């Protein structure tokens, strides 16, 4: 892209593009037999503009060149990193150490579902969790309702009445807002050492609870993360692009970090934590915008591992409109940048991490900072060109072109392409050029968000619950219709659902837990 900009600029400018020959003299361009402009003769390249004034003004250009070289170097580092991950996924040894654990004395686990106005989706996830293959006596489901103003509470309470021994709601009416704050309050009431967390729009499969619990049997594992797969992929261009992007991030990036014994990231949903690990690193931090990234850093710095596997899959809803997508990615960028500022020093000095884990953790935390750097690099390169400074030549030019061709830290095309192929898709790989659209939107959104997080703030902004807008249609309507149906069925016949019989207890009173915070 940079090369193209240079060529186009040269083509449209009135002066011939200065080309410095081996002996240092300049000649006019004479491309492929086209007649040269007759008024052009041997013209020396114009001197850098500052030399017309004072040599003391040379230093800003030197600084710009140095910054540009530094940016190119960083982009090359990320390029190498992402190519390394992709080659590992394609050709390296894969690690799924816990995938074969299908029999054990399954421990007690609590599944938490943070909710805030989730009437469209909450019934679906509750139905799915009630169908999972896990000992019913060892599974507790706790919807964490944080001041919902829609029918979320009504729906949760209805399920709690039907399954009082399995669904124990937590209704929160006060305390600091936000998902992390809600989880922090809810965790005080969790009795098991293992807790899994799902966002309300997820649809777990029958085996997912066992799969997520298996790594937590390992005493070194503090958190576990599974793969999120978009369910609303066919919706529109954005959802199709996000499906590919998610594939790149999980199928290649996360799994490669697990394979290479680096730092897979705990993502806050389709995952779980060990409470003793969580408490040993200070618990949830409600002021964090991305509590998952925050927790990942503290866990690994404290000597815990995060386990990841592509096989622990769950459906999710991705944003269907660009404004929602931009809000989501800006939040991620701010949260990541905030975590980078707080925890990169901690990662670098942690004695529990090897050098390659420290490096990978640093690169992981700094990934959203590459967006503004990418833009700055472009601007500097163009500015240097018009200032007459030929900063890109030789090896540096090659590196610049190579690194910018992979679009910097995103390494969008290579990772995504490999992920799509690993998933067994064929035709959707043709959408790869359109990923450029998503990349450009993300680039400017995250760049702005990352820079805003770097600026010192005079006052702390209030934390609000940042949730992604739900697009599932008629979720509440479908639940209401189902409610009428099940009431009719229960009146007409005895319960024929063996699972429901096991879970229902007519003697246990319904007592939803209320927040006392």
């Amino acid at each position, binding site marked *: 892209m940079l090369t*193209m900009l240079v060529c*186009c600029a040269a*083509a*449209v400018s009135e002066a011939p593009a200065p080309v410095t020959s081996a002996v240092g003299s300049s000649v006019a361009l004479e491309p492929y037999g*086209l*007649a040269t*402009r*007759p*008024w052009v003769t041997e013209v020396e390249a114009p001197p850098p503009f500052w030399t017309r004034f004072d040599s003391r003004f040379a230093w800003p250009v030197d600084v710009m060149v140095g910054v540009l070289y530094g940016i190119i170097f960083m982009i090359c580092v990320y390029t190498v990193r992402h190519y390394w991950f992709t080659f590992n996924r394609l050709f390296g040894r894969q*690690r799924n*150490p*816990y*995938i*074969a*654990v*299908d*029999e*054990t*004395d399954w421990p007690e686990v609590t599944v938490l579902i943070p909710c805030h106005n989730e009437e469209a989706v909450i019934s679906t996830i509750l139905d799915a969790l009630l169908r999972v*293959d896990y000992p019913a006596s060892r599974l507790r489901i706790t919807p964490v309702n944080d001041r919902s103003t829609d029918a979320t509470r009504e729906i949760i309470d209805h399920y709690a009445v039907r399954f009082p021994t399995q669904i124990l709601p937590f209704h929160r009416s006060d305390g600091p807002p936000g998902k992390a704050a809600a989880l922090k309050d809810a965790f005080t009431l969790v009795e098991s*050492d293992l807790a899994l967390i799902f966002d309300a729009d997820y649809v777990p*499969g*029958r*085996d997912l609870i*066992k799969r997520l619990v298996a790594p937590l*049997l*390992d*005493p*070194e594992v503090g958190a576990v993360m599974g793969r999120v*797969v*978009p*369910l*609303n*992929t*066919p919706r529109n261009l954005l959802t*199709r692009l996000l*499906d590919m992007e998610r*594939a790149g991030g999980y199928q290649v990036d996360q799994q490669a970090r697990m394979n290479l014994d680096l730092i897979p990231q705990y993502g806050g949903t389709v995952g779980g934590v060990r409470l*003793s*690990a969580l*408490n*040993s690193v200070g618990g949830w931090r409600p002021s964090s915008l991305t509590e998952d990234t925050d927790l990942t850093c503290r866990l690994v710095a*404290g*000597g815990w591992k995060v386990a990841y596997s592509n*096989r622990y*899959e*769950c*459906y999710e809803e991705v944003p269907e409109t660009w404004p929602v997508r931009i809000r989501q990615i800006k939040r991620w960028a701010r949260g990541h940048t905030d975590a980078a500022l707080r925890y990169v020093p901690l990662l670098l000095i942690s*004695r*529990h991490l090897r050098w390659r884990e420290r490096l990978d953790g640093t690169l992981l935390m700094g990934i959203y900072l590459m967006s503004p750097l990418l833009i700055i690099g472009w601007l500097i390169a163009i500015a240097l060109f018009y200032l007459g400074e030929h900063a890109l030549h030789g090896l540096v030019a090659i590196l610049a072109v190579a690194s910018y061709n992979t679009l910097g830290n995103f390494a969008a095309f290579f990772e995504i392409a490999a992920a799509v192929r690993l*998933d067994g*898709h*064929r*035709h*959707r790989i*043709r*959408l*790869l*050029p*359109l990923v450029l659209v998503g990349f450009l939107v993300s680039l400017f959104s995250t760049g702005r968000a990352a820079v805003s997080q770097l600026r010192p703030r005079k006052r702390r902004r209030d934390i609000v619950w940042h949730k992604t807008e739900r697009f599932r249609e008629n979720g509440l309507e479908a639940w209401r219709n189902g409610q009428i149906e099940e009431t009719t069925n229960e009146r007409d016949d005895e319960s024929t659902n063996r699972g429901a019989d096991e879970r229902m207890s007519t003697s246990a009173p319904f007592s939803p837990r209320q927040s006392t915070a």
Partner: protein
Amino acid sequence: MIFSHAAYHNQEMLLVLLSITALWLLLPFFPAFIELRSRRDAEPLPIADRYEEEMQHAPAQFIAALAMTAGQDNATRPVPLDLANLPRPGDPSAKAPYLLEESGAEPLPAGLLFTKEVLAKTALHTGPNSAFEAIYGENDLHLGEGNTVALWLHGEANVWISAGTHLHGSASALQEMVVEKGCTFERLHAANLLFGVEPALKERPLGPETLIPLALENEAGVPDHRLLICRDLTIPAGHVVEGNLVITESLHLERDARIIGDVKAHRSIVLEEGARVEGHVFSEKDVRLGAETQVTGVVVAERRLTLSRGCRVGALGRASTACGRYVDVAAGVQVHGTVWALERGRVTQ
């Protein structure tokens, strides 16, 4: 001068150059727009179906298919196996599963080839050197020597696998399964899984009062539920350690040593004769369980798992899993639950 022929020619060529460049840049977008419009590959990644393939032991899809074809007269309904006209190598492929309702006292002849599933309503005893796509037994199953099962095997009662049999895919029994020497396998499951015909050695009871507690320094820096050891760790004979251990190097339990808790080592784990772990065992490298050792929880080796004669994994009523990339099991091993070799498993001599 501006309107000279040369100037006009140059502008024309510039336009051509820009057009070609634009076309070149837009070229990759044409297939993208076609796919966007045709939506040939727009469905979500299918993830819901792996539960039955990978978690369950009974072949749920086969059972469901049988239930669907019951009472129907179509090409997929199981066809009764004609004992007088058994399929041999070279016979044309069958289109429906084979149904065995009466087997007789003698085993099936040797060298048979079944290219569809075999549904055995009665006890089944196969002859040597036969090959099966899959076997579902509602009664006892006894595979002769040198058999091969390509996809899966499941017995609702007991299963006996004779020497030299190759089991690909999953092999499971609801009650007991015996796997003789020389067999290779991928995934085995039974409430009581015995390897070899030698009886499992009795566990040597060693009460906790005869063991000497071993105090270890926690290098984690913060008190939590585990002990972090950043060196090779050897637990001397007759000593016991209580607590969950994370060892960044290797772990070695000497004779009759014991750990009460879960264990994870970045390098190898070796349990010598009579050692015992009352918890789960994880290693990023190899795990070798010596003779008469016992692990009550899961055993996971990311590389090689070796189970020596007389060792036991899990307990009756408390199933467990032993897995590794390569699994070598000696005769006399007893596992309650699953043994899963991700690359290759074999029962050694």
